């Protein structure tokens, strides 16, 4: 475990060295994410001009949820978005070879090797927005709730990674998964909506088979004191199953990897 942490520290260090070399790109990406945050804030602000409750949450609660979206997005962009972008290309071009001969988890190596230093700055901003939303929240949040929120956010990221990978792993058989990846990004937005706006079978799917609705909503419900032990067990359980399946799919995919002709 310590070895993986040290390895990740190298990835982070390299990423900063690389990112700062291309200064204009570095600042441009930060500006782009700031625009994304502004659009999201405006979107929810406008929604609450027309309704006082959305998915059972008032505006104060919604700001915590929206800040959760920012943090999740920044974490995703910082830790694994670049890596998942490259994965299908690597498989298609036969560039996985060197990753498969290294004595470390190929899933870890390919999923984390490219830490996005630019997005890390956005992560700091997102955490700032989250602190603002939590401090201004009129109710009592409690220390345990905050710790659980932090832990469940990490669990949510693991879940998001697994779900995204389900849409990428077919590239081992299809040689191109661009269509599936676009489907993923189309439905990814469902993770940025309060889970209680979904009903019936749609909700059942979104909290189990395609558990996008858990990722931000469940930690938010827990920190706002609306969750129960079952909420936590549900989220951790689904994540455990999702990762178990991910290992199975990944190993099958790697088994079918055909590399490329030299």
């Amino acid at each position, binding site marked *: 475990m310590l070895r993986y942490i040290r390895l990740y520290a190298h990835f982070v260090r390299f990423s900063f060295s690389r990112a700062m070399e291309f200064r204009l790109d570095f600042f441009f990406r930060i500006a782009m994410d700031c625009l994304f945050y502004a659009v999201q804030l405006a979107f929810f602000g406008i929604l609450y001009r027309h309704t006082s409750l959305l998915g059972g949450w008032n505006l104060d609660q919604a700001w915590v949820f929206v800040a959760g979206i920012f943090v999740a997005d920044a974490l995703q962009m910082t830790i694994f978005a670049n890596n998942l972008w490259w994965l299908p290309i690597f498989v298609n071009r036969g560039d996985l*070879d060197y990753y498969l001969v290294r004595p470390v988890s190929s899933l870890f190596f390919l999923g984390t090797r490219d830490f996005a230093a630019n997005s890390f700055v956005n992560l700091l901003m997102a955490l700032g927005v989250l602190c603002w939303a939590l401090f201004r929240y009129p109710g009592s949040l409690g220390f345990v709730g905050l710790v659980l929120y932090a832990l469940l956010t990490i669990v949510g990221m693991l879940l998001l990674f697994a779900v995204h990978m389900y849409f990428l792993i077919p590239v081992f058989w299809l040689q191109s998964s661009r269509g599936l990846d676009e489907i993923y990004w189309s439905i990814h937005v469902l993770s940025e909506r309060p889970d209680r706006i979904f009903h019936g079978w749609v909700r059942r799917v979104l909290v189990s088979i395609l558990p996008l609705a858990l990722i931000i909503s469940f930690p938010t419900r827990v920190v706002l004191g609306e969750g129960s032990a079952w909420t936590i067990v549900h989220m951790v359980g689904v994540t455990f199953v999702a990762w178990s399946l991910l290992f199975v799919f990944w190993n099958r995919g790697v*088994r*079918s990897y055909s590399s490329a002709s030299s």
Partner: protein
Amino acid sequence: MPPIVHVRGLSKRFTVHKKAPGLRGSVRALFVRDKLVKDAVRGVSFEVGEGEIVGLVGANGAGKTTIVKMLAGIIHPTSGQARVLGHDPWKRHNDFRRQIALIMGQKAQLWWDLPAADCFLVLKEIYRIPADRYRRTLDYLADVLNIGDELNVQIRRLSLGERMKMELIAALLHTPKVVYLDEPTIGLDLSAQRAIRGFILEYRERHAPAMLLTSHYMEDIERLCERILIMREGEIVYDGRLDQVVRKHAGYKVLTIHLQEQVQGVCETPELAAVGEVQECNEELIRLHVPRREAATAAAHLLASYPVADLTLEEPEIGDIIERIMAAQKGAPA
């Protein structure tokens, strides 16, 4: 030399889709696909011992790289068995991966935007190399390859030869027991090729790993390998010592004559065709392939028939023989 790579009946079959050219072909391929089954490797068996450099020789598409990738655990075979250091390579056990190295001349493993020294630190962590051993090995490799000054230069700013040297260091930092070299000198100039070859021999002398080398450069094979496997359409058609290839597969010797003076019409004289197969002929020089057993008689006959200034009787170029074996039709004797 106890064998540490055992391969028995290893095969790999790829299924690819065929598509007719043009838009019509693309539309048709959306609904109906013709499959093309290609046997890249067909039931090959061989062994490689400790300290041995075995050359895998063959035309493009003969299956050399597929064998290397199967033995490195990158792709799964369709059938057959292989044991490398006592492991099934495609199970990719960490203990196995810690003891092998793969170098592909056509693919880079180092981070493009980083200095090699930084990339090596990651490999130190991946292979759990103790700090003092890492320092010693890096110093040794950089010294032998004469690349110490470039360690802190970004990879993308290095020449192709320097990059390949860094790739070699990256692959050998953990002192692997099995090394797969897939065209390690491709694209390099002659001096860089020589440096890489010298280094491989020096490394073998010091660490005695089992090495499997593929290369299209015959000089790599001649300088580095005592034993070669010649591949043709996925099969091994020759497995043996390099110096035996000529003896076994060339039934002729090359007889070259330099004439003392220009001899008009020498190429048309019937004696030449009777002695051997004329390869090159002009008024000053004659080169023939003569049957191995009749080489001395042929030489004597030509000495008696022409004003000879110089005569040489040589073994054919190994490269020519190998090319001939590789180019032969499947089913033809190798």
